[in-house]
């Protein structure tokens, strides 16, 4: 800053440390819970120091889960979440980059109409039109399938917008040079535009992976077969149980496992994540 005030710097650090602690506290509590035995949750306040049951709790959850309460093991649920998150992220990027390319680099009748049709999807969160969409998916026979989990969520105006904004910043001369060099539209897309979009694609991928992994209502509605449960929705089923029979140690192990993959993605790809977040929203 402009002037050097040790007390102010101290205050700043104090504020931040306090903030970081508040932000981290719920997860810390959950982690502690996942390391203790069942007996710790029967009465009184839960302890704040790690217990000795970590491995036991996590291996129970990963391998067998709380089957007696209708919740499958976590490992296959995490796999389903992974499939869903990857399909949504890859699918969204693929169809958005193609449609943005069409809108920016071609002139054709109904171009504006197509643009607006895509734009309105930005306006309608899944939650708002959940039942009619459910019906469509049911009629198409896509309940209890990976396709049903991912395809209805992959149309995205946001990603199309990001690519459109980016394409508009690519100098016109680059297309012209490519045309003079004998590249047609598909060649230009593959050889020039796609490599240039690499960072944008990666940034978008981080955001969309998290979006896909964290889906809740949609999988809850369209999966009745435990084989297709995703972990985020599965937790709800366990938590309901835990109210009656407090196996909080196991539920919290599941919570930690559900939160871990997307958190790791953010921590390891922080730069891309921030770029993706700030740019998709602008």
């Amino acid at each position, binding site marked *: 800053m402009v002037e050097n005030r040790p007390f102010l710097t101290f205050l700043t650090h104090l504020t931040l440390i306090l903030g970081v602690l508040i932000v981290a506290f719920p997860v810390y509590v959950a982690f502690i819970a996942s390391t203790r035995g069942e007996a710790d949750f029967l009465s009184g306040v839960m302890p704040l120091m790690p217990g000795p049951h970590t491995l036991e709790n996590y291996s129970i959850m990963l391998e067998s889960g709380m089957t007696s309460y209708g919740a499958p093991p976590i490992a296959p649920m995490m796999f389903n979440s992974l499939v869903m998150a990857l399909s949504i992220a890859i699918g969204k990027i693929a169809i958005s980059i193609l449609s943005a390319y069409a809108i920016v680099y071609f002139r054709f009748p109904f171009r504006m109409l197509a643009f607006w049709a895509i734009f309105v999807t930005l306006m309608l969160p899944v939650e708002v039109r959940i039942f009619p969409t459910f019906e469509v998916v049911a009629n198409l026979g896509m309940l209890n399938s990976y396709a049903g989990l991912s395809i209805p969520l992959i149309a995205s105006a946001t990603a199309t917008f990001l690519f459109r904004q980016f394409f508009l910043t690519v*100098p016109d*001369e*680059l297309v012209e040079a*490519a045309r003079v060099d*004998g*590249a047609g539209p598909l060649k230009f897309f593959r050889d020039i535009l796609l490599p240039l979009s690499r960072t944008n694609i990666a940034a978008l991928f981080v955001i969309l992976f998290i979006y896909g992994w964290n889906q809740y209502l949609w999988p809850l509605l369209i999966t009745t077969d435990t084989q297709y449960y995703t972990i985020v929705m599965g937790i709800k089923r366990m938590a309901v149980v835990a109210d009656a029979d407090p196996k909080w140690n196991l539920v919290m192990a599941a919570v930690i496992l559900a939160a871990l993959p997307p958190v790791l993605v953010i921590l390891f790809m922080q730069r891309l994540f921030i770029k993706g977040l700030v740019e998709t929203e602008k």
Partner: protein
Amino acid sequence: MATVDLKDVKKTYAGNVVAVKGVSIAVPDGQLCVLVGPSGCGKSTLLRMIAGLETITDGTVSIDGKVVNTIGPAERDIAMVFQNYALYPHMKVYDNMAYGLRNRGMGKDEIDKRVRETAKILELGALLERRPRELSGGQRQRVAMGRAIVRSPKVFLFDEPLSNLDAKLRGQMRVEIKNLQRTLGVTSVYVTHDQLEAMTLADVLVVMNGGLVEQVGNPLDIYEKPASTFVASFIGAPPMNLLPLTDSANGATLSDGTAVPQAPKGAAILGVRPEDADVAVGAAASAGGLSLPATVEGVEPVGAESFLYCAAGGQKIIVRVSGRSPANPGDTLKVVAKAEKLHWFDTAGKRV
């Protein structure tokens, strides 16, 4: 080798915006044709129509005697150097140069041979493995040139290729482009808004204004005999002094009433280039020449020459003298010019 022929070429954009109003130019084989004019005069549009990047509203563009109106840019056998170079940022210099050849299905060995030969000519050998962002402005310019040369096309098109360089580099590259074009003997069309660049490079100079050709010819011919006041003020720096004349009872006069008896019939504007004018104290005018009483208002010494800003005949006149200025601000003297150095234009601005 090829000729480029434009016949009555027109370009109208959506919304009836006319960019080019009918232009005919013939560029002989191996010559460098420069299109020069202020921004918005249609010179870039014309170049892009030759390249095939813009559709042609009317008229024909022929390359090597063949009409190419409906042929795509890649099939016209042209190469283009862009103002911002338009290098593919994610490709190495080598791949930037090879890309067009690969798209034409040329064999690997032949591509390698051509790229290395071209790199040698342009002294790019050491840069082949670099990416554009690791190059200086001048180096990028060379790569852009290399990308055009490596294809050995029938025609080179240059779209203000030097305007992103600093003044010193621009001078160097100008000489280099001229030499390369001479050596390779490839017919070229070069667009610029810089009259100095136009004068020094052109075999055929085309001065454009408002979507029309004002004058075509050899650069020095155009300099010596500008066809219009527009050309007169665009070519040459500082621009030609243009003094309006009025018809009165005792012939043509300047705005302060000074008679100009030597004015030919129909002349409405008198033009004198600063370098053709001189200042003199008390001397008489040479036969038929100009001699105007004047007051010096300002002097700009730039070393090798000096510019005198004078008030004469009710107008401002710039006079260029070599070396130091013989006068100081406030001095009264005469602005003189030889008869053969006077230019006359009619009311429409056309040369008389």
